[in-house]
């Protein structure tokens, strides 16, 4: 895809084609195995919203490590308006949810659709406004970062409670929402970890003197997040396992018996690998180690989403691969076209470039 850079209208056309392809993939095939689309949507929503959230958090706290990657992380912004469109494709699949047969005041199809669409759209809008100000280094960006983060937390909580948890209705875990928005931030950080290698190679001519220190900070944050993720995972697991209430522990027991390999894989990929690999200071500064660890985290998060959804909504693995490949291609396209797609053209771009090379000072 090297050399491809689309204008806004061209990118919109590609998004429309991708939506049509996804609709065909999802609704043209057999009825069984339609959980793949939900897994893909949950995973890419967390990556797209999480990478913008990383920039928002760093702008809010005055952290400078993300400055060289700000534009790359914000490349997900043009993808965010695509998410409500993809969510609409979920509408015919809503009979997957056990509550669809006996709707309640909160869990009924029209309200489910309306609140999630509204939140996805509002988050996308807030991301646009924030990105414009962040790239221009506008002092008002802090307010927009707060607004985006509040919407992001609400949206990811609904992704957790509505899209995933309600598949196993009436199973309840109060931590699910917090777990999801922390995971999305973790995914955003992992993306940043990969970008240090991928983006650094593509920009040999630019001033990258600031990168090793920024990489070490990103490595430190990934290491810290691996501990945070491990703590949250354990806190949720322990309470359910120890309580051993049939209506609660069934969620874990079903998944453990259905796929013990996946159950072992995702804690290893999200906790053990980053924790052990990033223990040493040298590893934290290495672009290759950071990239490998980040890849492990992202794969672990995908595996976990698959495990959450698969027993309740069967997944076709071919469809899962194809849909994720399509979304990956879209993200790469957005990355390649970021100079033309992102808000703040002209003056803003100049500010952005200045930020990448000089702001880390």
């Amino acid at each position: 895809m090297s050399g491809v850079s689309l204008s806004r209208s061209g990118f919109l056309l590609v998004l429309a084609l991708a939506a049509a392809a996804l609709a065909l993939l999802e609704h043209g095939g057999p009825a069984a195995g339609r959980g793949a689309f939900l897994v893909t949507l949950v995973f890419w929503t967390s990556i797209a919203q999480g990478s913008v959230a990383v920039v928002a958090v760093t702008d809010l706290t005055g952290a400078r490590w993300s400055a060289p990657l700000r534009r790359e992380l914000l490349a997900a912004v043009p993808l965010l308006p695509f998410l409500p469109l993809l969510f609409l494709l979920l509408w015919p699949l809503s009979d997957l949810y056990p509550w669809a047969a006996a709707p309640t005041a909160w869990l009924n199809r029209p309200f489910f659709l309306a609140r999630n669409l509204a939140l996805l759209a509002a988050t996308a809008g807030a991301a646009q406004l924030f990105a414009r100000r962040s790239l221009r280094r506008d002092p008002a960006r802090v307010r927009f970062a707060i607004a985006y983060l509040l919407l992001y937390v609400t949206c990811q909580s609904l992704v957790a409670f509505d899209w995933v948890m309600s598949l196993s209705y009436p199973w309840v875990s109060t931590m699910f929402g917090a777990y999801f928005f922390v995971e999305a931030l973790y995914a955003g950080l992992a993306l940043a970890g990969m970008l240090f290698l991928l983006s650094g190679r593509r920009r040999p001519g630019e001033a990258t003197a600031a990168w090793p220190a920024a990489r070490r900070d990103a490595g430190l944050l990934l290491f810290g997040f691996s501990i945070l993720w491990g703590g949250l995972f354990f806190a949720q697991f322990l309470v359910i396992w120890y309580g051993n209430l049939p209506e609660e522990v069934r969620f874990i027991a079903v998944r453990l018996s259905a796929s013990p390999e996946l159950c072992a894989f995702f804690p290893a990929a999200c906790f053990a690998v980053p924790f052990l690999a990033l223990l040493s200071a040298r590893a934290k500064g290495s672009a290759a180690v950071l990239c490998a660890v980040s890849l492990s985290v992202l794969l672990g998060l995908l595996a976990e989403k698959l495990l959450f959804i698969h027993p309740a909504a069967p997944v076709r693995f071919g469809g899962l691969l194809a849909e994720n490949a399509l979304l990956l291609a879209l993200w790469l396209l957005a990355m390649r076209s970021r100079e033309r797609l992102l808000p703040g053209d002209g003056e803003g771009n100049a500010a952005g470039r200045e930020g990448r090379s000089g702001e880390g000072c």
Partner: protein
Amino acid sequence: MRPETLDNINASARVEEDVLAALGRPGWRYLAGVGLCALLALMLFTLWGGLIFRGLGLSGKNHPVGWAMLITNFVFWVGIAHSGTLISAVLFLFRARFRTSFNRSAEAMTIFALMVAGLFPLIHLGRVWVFYYLLPYPSERLIWPNFRSPLVWDVFAVTTYLIVSLVFFYVGMIPDLAVARRRLPGVRGRIYGLLSLGWQGTLRQWRHYGRLYLFLAAFATPLVASVHSIVSWDFAVSIVPGWHTTIFAPYFVAGAIFSGTAMVITLTIPMRRWLRLEPYITVDHFEAIAKILLFTSLIITYTYLVEHGLSLYGGNPFERDQYLYRALGDYRPLFAVMVICNSLLPLTMFIRRLRRSLAWLFILGILVNIGMWLERFVIITASLARDYDPYAWGSYNFSVVEFGITIGSFGLFFLLFLLFARLLPVLAVTEIKQGAEERHEEAGMQGASERGSEAYP
């Protein structure tokens, strides 16, 4: 290193003088404060003595509310103990500079709060002389504590936290004790000399000190989360409605940081004024710590919404009734005050003018701690009062003895803090000097950067 100029030497000397001035002769106000707090602490121990000799019938505990005000106090004080390590260790790791204004007071607060917290399980035991049953010691009867019980996890977690916090507090203070040794004459100077463990400030010593301090900060940070998570599991691993909920661990950790930060604000605002530390603890520093208060308040509010919302979601009648009971039942006034203090009033921190108003911050700090104490009280008593079986329902009213013990615990805590403020350096003198040097160097680098150089700090 910054070159030793006359200006630098004078500035360093002034920091030392200003901070160590607090170690001078106390005034009558200070002595009156110490006397009042000592009386309250004495009341605590007298009432505890009464409970030992007359029995736990003097408390309001009953069936089914067997955990009540005493355990509320335990959770509250362990929570207060959290911000000490958070401000010191986490902000050190995140290179937040405003930390130096608060870290020493916060670390001292951690230790005193843990000491007070540790009293409450002992008071709650009734027969305090058998406290050692909690410890895993080899016994000829081969009786061991139940290692699957979170109450035993508590013993290990709180003890570990106390030890690490003590070491962290002491290690951080060693260079400042050496300054006190140099500056104070006579016996006091010799005592500080002994406590400073022969610190000379050589490069080798600083290198070892830096590594140890970083290691302790990195070690203490997950410990902060683990201790209050374990306290939360005292409740969450049971199957009592309102207690058995997965969000309890992060909720308790955030709540602990919230109340601890409020206590740091409550303590440092008057301390700053009485010890004339305005140049070192600035309004900007308070604004930064107010943002932590706001952030943790938002987490707490999110948790309230999720807990109460999901109790209506799943169709579990016990959960639904428990949360309705908390909000609308016997404890509704306490619940309302809790929501106002913990969720609504901290929203004022979005307004910059209020974040920078020390009078409002001081009041808010007190109100937040009232709210957080009530939150623990409501969680603990309401769930026990309305369990599954209506036949076993009950209610709880605290007794005068429990109330007196609670007030006395505040007296003991403030007494320890007042003694600390006169006996040890309340600010990290060497870190403040180091921070000033770094800012000076950065200003120099910025000047160089403007002339074309680029570097990442």
